[in-house]
């Protein structure tokens, strides 16, 4: 007797359904379990795709340092650049003792290629001083910086800044309007300077190194009046301080207004950013005590000036405040002004 059904036939729906399920699984698996899918999954787990477990260290929970109160403090910075500081604070302490007041801004120099000296910044901070780094692009072409060839270095630097999470003033390629440095007017154009400056700033922003106070630091225009400053200015969104540099030299202008006035007039035509005198000192000589007094008074008088950095070196000439007893005395008297110096940790 022939029958309408057989086990083989009875099995077909089961097999067909199983086959359909498998086919469906494979089809949808194509996307869910593709490389992209796996990467997406790992990222969703908070991992770098393909990374090993130890590479997934979480970010420091500490919020980034808010530098805003340091940008335009009510009082004036009393800054110093001193020999060996801030690696060894002896010179700074000596300066403080002679000046009768602790400086709260410590400037030092860093060449292109140097790593971000976190220990120095920490040292200065522990002493009560904000670090001011003049970042000098020796041995590198500004064009290469702007084109991104130096990005690895800049990123590493920026990440260190972010990781340390202490405020720092950074002045890239200072005195760019002078001819004496390799990044000066003889070797580079204004456009190349601004492009490099902006690029560094952008990379820092990209890395989230927001602890930087950006200082645009031209020399006073007096030695090279033909070089206009405006083309060198990167823009208000790239600059926090205008860090003007001008020394009282025996053969140069003898008053605050004569020394800084022409530059201020030019700069104020394109920005309202606060000024800081990024480097200054008075050449040893008879005029020095008067110059010191002029510097303090001139700086304190203008609301848009937030202080100065004294270049306390005996280099080329003796710029130190203790080059003569009268200078030291005058400096001490002037620094006693309550408007100078404040606690940078609690501005």
């Amino acid at each position, binding site marked *: *007797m022939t*029958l*309408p*059904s*057989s*086990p*083989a036939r*009875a*099995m077909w*729906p*089961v097999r067909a*359904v*199983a086959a*359909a*399920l498998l086919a*469906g*699984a494979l*089809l*949808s*698996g194509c*996307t*869910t*379990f593709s490389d992209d*899918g796996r990467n*997406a*999954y790992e*990222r*969703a*787990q*908070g*991992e*770098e795709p393909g990374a090993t477990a130890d590479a997934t260290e979480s*970010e420091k*929970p500490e*919020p*980034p340092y*808010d530098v*805003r109160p340091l*940008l335009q403090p009510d009082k004036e910075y009393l800054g110093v650049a001193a020999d060996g500081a801030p690696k060894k604070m002896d010179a700074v302490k000596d300066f403080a003792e002679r000046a009768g007041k602790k400086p709260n801004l410590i400037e030092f120099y860093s060449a292109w290629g140097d790593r971000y000296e976190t220990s120095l910044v920490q040292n200065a901070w522990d002493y009560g001083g904000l670090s001011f780094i003049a970042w000098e692009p020796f041995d590198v072409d500004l064009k290469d910086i702007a084109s991104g060839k130096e990005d690895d270095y800049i990123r590493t630097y920026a990440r260190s800044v972010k990781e340390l999470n202490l405020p720092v003033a950074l002045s890239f390629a200072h005195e760019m309007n002078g001819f004496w440095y390799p990044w000066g007017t003889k070797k580079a154009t204004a456009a190349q300077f601004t492009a490099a400056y902006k690029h560094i700033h952008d990379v820092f*922003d*990209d*890395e*989230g190194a*927001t602890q930087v106070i950006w200082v645009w630091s031209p020399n006073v225009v007096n030695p090279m009046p033909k070089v206009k400053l405006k083309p060198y200015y990167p*823009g*208000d*969104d790239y600059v*926090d301080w205008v860090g003007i540099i001008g020394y009282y030299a025996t053969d140069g202008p003898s008053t605050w207004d004569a020394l800084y006035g022409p530059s201020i007039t030019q700069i104020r035509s394109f*920005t*309202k*950013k606060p000024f800081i005198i990024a480097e200054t000192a008075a050449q040893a000589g008879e005029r020095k005590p008067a110059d010191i007094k002029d510097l303090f008074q001139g700086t304190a008088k203008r609301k848009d000036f937030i202080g100065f950095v004294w270049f306390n070196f005996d280099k080329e000439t003796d710029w130190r405040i203790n080059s003569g007893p009268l200078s030291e005395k005058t400096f001490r008297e002037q620094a006693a002004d309550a408007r100078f110096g404040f606690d940078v940790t609690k501005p």
Partner: protein
Amino acid sequence: MTDQQHTYQGYGQNQEPYPQQPQPRDPWQYQEEHQFYAGEAHQGQVVPGEVVRREVTESGSWMFDGQISAYTDQQTYETYAPYDPYATYTAPTATVTAPAPAPQPAPAPVVPETPGYVLPPVPESAWEMDTKRSRLLGRLALLCILLIQTGLSLRLRGTAFQDEALYIASGHYELANLLHGDKLPVDFAAYFSGHPKLYPVVAAVVDSQFGLTGVRLLSLVFMLGATGLLYSLTRRLFNPRAGLGAAALFSVLQSTIVLGNFATYDAAAVFLLALAAWAVVRTDRMNVLAVLLAAPPAALAFGVKYASGMYLPTLVVLAVITAHRHRGIRAVGRGVVLGAGIVALLGIGYVLSGPLGGISSTTTDRAKGTDTAATMLSHSAEWGGLVFLAALGGSIAYALRARMGEMPWLGAETSGRWRRVALGLVLTGTALLAPAYQIHLHTEISLYKHVGFGLLFAAPMAGLGMARLVGPHFRHPQLGILLYVLTLVFGMVQAQRAYSFPDSTQMTDYLRTVVDKKGTYLAEEQEVPAYYLRDKTDWNQWQNTYFMDYRGKDGKQYTGPDAFRQAVRDGKFDAIVMHGSVSPATYAAVKEGLKNNSHYRLAAVFPFTTSSGESAYRIWVKR
């Protein structure tokens, strides 16, 4: 079996009375095989004089693997054929040698009459009837399923997603409005996809006690409840095994896993829909009016999330199909009663709640997107394809045969074929509603959640499909395991990808140091900081990155990205928080506005990774 059972009449297609005689036989029926192995259960069917027959004559042939093998009955041995539920029996060829069996009394003609009482269909669960023990086992298995679901949901972690932040925060404002009559910062009802005075208020109450985790746990409870109800209703529709299959498959879906740890309306709506469906099925043998018990949860589901409305027709049709006591127009009446009940409740709700602009802007008349049908189809297939296929298989298998025939002696009553086909069509077809509707709208927003709504209805058929795949007497357990494990792996991986949004911890911590009661803040996904910082800021201090009208300081009126650009140029905002992955156009405009802008300074960058890549919160503050 009792005589009573022999004579009662089912109302399905299979209306023949239980056959009294072993012959003539339908090869699909298994009457004969009982004579070989059934124990006591078959005693009542065996014709008198069995012993005599065996001694003398009977020999039958069984067909296994396409071959007919003859077993010659011998009087002293029982014949044990390897059991095969698909085996078919041929009537013994009449090679009677000895006295013919005593002539049997002709069966009394069955008088079709309306039964005084209709027995419920006996659930087909295993070799035995649905006993206490099998019920206990079923519940234990369900417990395991729920535990796995809990684990899968709770392994997902993250700070509040935009929608969660929005609903909970709005709930706090709505609650203050209800309790103290405080003015609402905005008319949430105008753009919410559910009623702002339902779920958000509950969420806010839980949030003030237990925080976001508490609200998410509430969602987990809802989803676990939905799985439990799904088990219960499928068990009643079919059998416990299908119930377990449905619960197992539904519990590991991507949408179920995500919604179980997601503080939005969805979990509550899924639960209410499940409750309504359960009530529809549970009242199947009760008075028609009992189906009204399903109306409140159904109406509430719509109120909680308007998109649930798409599934209310399914409930109504389900009420018709499951109307066990009624046929024809009376079954339709059950649906009408339920439909009328829901409509009445919704009407009352509408009168009480006033205008709800949100219904049209979020659900019925949502802005059309640009997502293509192909993408959405392939995504829907990824998210629910397996379960849908299983449901399809279940529907087909159910349409072909009401039962697997494990207990042929129970072959009494099943639903008729049309009813079975309709049930499969309605339940399985419901899974297609959400993808179809969103393809119509060209928008994939929330589709990954919405597929889960439809699959809730398809799950009973999928559970049945799984039970059929496993086969009678657990013949192919590996296939069922395969299906479950595949669904689980897909669900787990996809849930991890879907449940991935920016970690806002650092961002809100930082903003906390920046914000005050007066400022204006532009933030991408502004609901998140507005929720976390609601103690320090007011809702309206946060400007979203979607729409803005702005009169610039130059006196011109701006809209769209131009408005954001100009407002940033003018320094309108005290802080700006962007990451660009939600509103790229606004992000670009804001960046342009920040160019050469001395108002702002980048204050913080907090990188985060989501499944779509790496990004970072960038916070600009006024200098």
